[in-house]
């Protein structure tokens, strides 16, 4: 057992112990101070809630299934020698994220506001889901928020794939799920300042910054941490030629990438419509339609862009296009009409193509295109909501005040969204830089060049993904000479 591992294990042992000790009292055998754990009281008070619970949970299941979609897209875009590692990272961020969000992530995100109700910076209740949080409504929301948190976490794995140490990824997973994601989440969805501070509400005209299902909270957070991580890690060996021109490194299985895209699209119907947290919001139908149209418009746009550019429609970029549209519509999905959804999608298709190529040309080696897909389009989602909100839906509910954007005469709300987008970028990118900088200085974040060339499957997991197949890199991509724009 290497020294590194030994240290990791000891660390984890200590942390776990601490947690259990902390937990013990709150878990005390008497359920005196707990919430409505059986659900009987809640049902009596809200006899219409069963359908809302069912809706929220089932949609949450679909979002959880997006983990499989991310795993497939990322694995498909990775080389054979890193398949097991990419899959493992996708599994383990969900695993670690679940535990971290249970221990503290949820409390920080959805707990009672601190320092004050008017200016919430972080939440402070609900640790370990113990005490009052042992309540059916809290649990339903915990589950739904967890799967969103896990989505944010997993976005990074694909961007930085094929080079980071696995142990670093484990730690990163814990930190984003326990701290980075929940804090911005609190600002938007936990009653924090971006959505509820009086000056924001005033600026927006009755409501502060909004984000229906997480273009910003989930996707842009993940995307900009990915950007920071890509910068701290540097590009993969062989990604740039002597002149600094990018060389494409094709993924090993385009079928996985497309299958993953389908699964993500499917899961997105849990992501967006599910974010009403209630089937009584019949607006869910509009949300589903908008989600689908934006994804389709963006995929078609990306396809045509590559078709015109290179004479042939590119499969990988079409997948990225679909995801870009879905990311972009995630914030505005409940507040815009179908025509706007199509326009948002078309713009997303342009952003993802040119955004990805721009970054690639500037030394950012993002294996799956996560920064362009989730980062840039997450921001576009926040902004487009500020533009296209058409006044037919309220603040996460049917009741007024109805949300309107720039086009419908509310520049104040548009400003709110710009602020939110800027804060979002600063927070995610800043935290990402700090986190990966600390890790780099302490344990080192990247495997050695030899390990990278051999592949992380063998060096990090002592395994081979497809032992019965003859796999090669001699034809592709080792023999690629200089990519051309």
């Amino acid at each position, binding site marked *: 057992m290497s020294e590194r591992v030994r240290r990791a294990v000891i660390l984890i042992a200590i942390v776990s112990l601490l947690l259990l000790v902390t937990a013990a009292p709150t878990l005390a055998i008497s359920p005196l101070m707990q919430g409505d754990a059986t659900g009987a009281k809640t049902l009596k008070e809200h006899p219409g809630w069963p359908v809302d619970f069912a809706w929220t949970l089932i949609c949450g299941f679909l979002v959880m299934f997006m983990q499989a979609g991310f795993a497939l897209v990322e694995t498909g875009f990775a080389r054979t020698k890193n398949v097991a590692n990419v899959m493992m990272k996708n599994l383990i961020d969900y695993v670690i994220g679940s535990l971290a969000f249970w221990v503290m992530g949820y409390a920080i995100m959805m707990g009672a506001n601190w320092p004050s109700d008017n200016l919430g910076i972080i939440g402070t209740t609900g640790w370990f889901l113990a005490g009052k949080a042992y309540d059916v409504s809290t649990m339903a929301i915990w589950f739904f928020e967890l799967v969103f948190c896990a989505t944010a976490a997993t976005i990074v794995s694909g961007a930085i794939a094929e080079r980071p140490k696995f142990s670093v990824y484990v730690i990163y997973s814990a930190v984003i799920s326990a701290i980075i994601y929940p804090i911005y989440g609190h600002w938007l969805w936990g009653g924090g300042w971006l959505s509820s501070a009086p000056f924001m509400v005033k600026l927006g005209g009755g409501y502060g910054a909004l984000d229906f299902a997480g273009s910003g909270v989930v996707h842009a957070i993940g995307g900009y941490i990915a950007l920071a991580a890509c910068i701290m890690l540097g590009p993969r060996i062989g990604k740039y030629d002597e002149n600094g021109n990018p060389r*494409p490194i094709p993924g090993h299985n385009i079928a996985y990438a497309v299958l993953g895209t389908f699964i993500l699209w499917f899961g997105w119907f849990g992501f967006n419509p599910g974010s009403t947290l209630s089937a009584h919001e019949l607006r869910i139908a509009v949300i589903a339609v908008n989600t689908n149209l934006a994804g389709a418009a963006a995929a078609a746009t990306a396809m045509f*862009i590559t078709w015109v550019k290179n004479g042939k429609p590119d499969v990988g*970029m079409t997948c990225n296009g679909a995801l870009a549209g879905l990311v972009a519509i995630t914030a505005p999905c409940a507040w815009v009409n179908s025509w706007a959804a199509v326009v948002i999608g078309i713009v997303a298709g342009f952003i993802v193509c040119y955004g990805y190529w721009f970054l*690639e040309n500037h030394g950012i080696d993002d294996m799956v295109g996560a920064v362009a897909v989730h980062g840039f389009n997450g921001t576009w989602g926040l902004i487009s909501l500020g533009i296209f909100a058409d006044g037919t839906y309220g603040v996460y509910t049917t009741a007024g005040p109805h949300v309107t954007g720039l086009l419908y005469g509310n520049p104040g709300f548009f400003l709110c969204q710009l602020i939110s987008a800027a804060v979002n970028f600063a927070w995610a990118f800043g935290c990402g830089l700090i986190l990966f900088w600390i890790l780099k200085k302490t344990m080192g974040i990247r495997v050695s060049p030899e390990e990278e060339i051999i592949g992380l499957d063998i060096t990090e997991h002592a395994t081979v993904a497809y032992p019965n197949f003859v796999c090669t890199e001699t034809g592709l991509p080792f023999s*690629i000479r200089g990519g*051309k724009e």
Partner: protein
Amino acid sequence: MKKIEAIIRSEKFMDVKEALEKRGFYGMTVTDVRGRGRQKGMQLQFRGRVMEIDLLPKVKIELVVTDEEVNDVITIISDYARTGNVGDGKIFIIPIEDVVRVRTGERGEKAI
């Protein structure tokens, strides 16, 4: 005895195989290889970025034949593998000192 090693286009393999079979050359060993030569590779794209591939898939056929048959086999392969464009492939003739048939232990020409 000689070993004829022919490296040909994958898409021509079926034609060559049938032609050889018709003239009575049935035994052969086939490997999937990648090759380059005068043919300058091809362009593919990945996520919209164009790249140049310089090793192309080829099929290698190995046939061990008697000295007299060598020219026949060369002619057949050349005729059926030819498209006239660069990349049609090459045939190498290699001396073989002995052949053993595992099943029977026979040696030499009768083991081919």
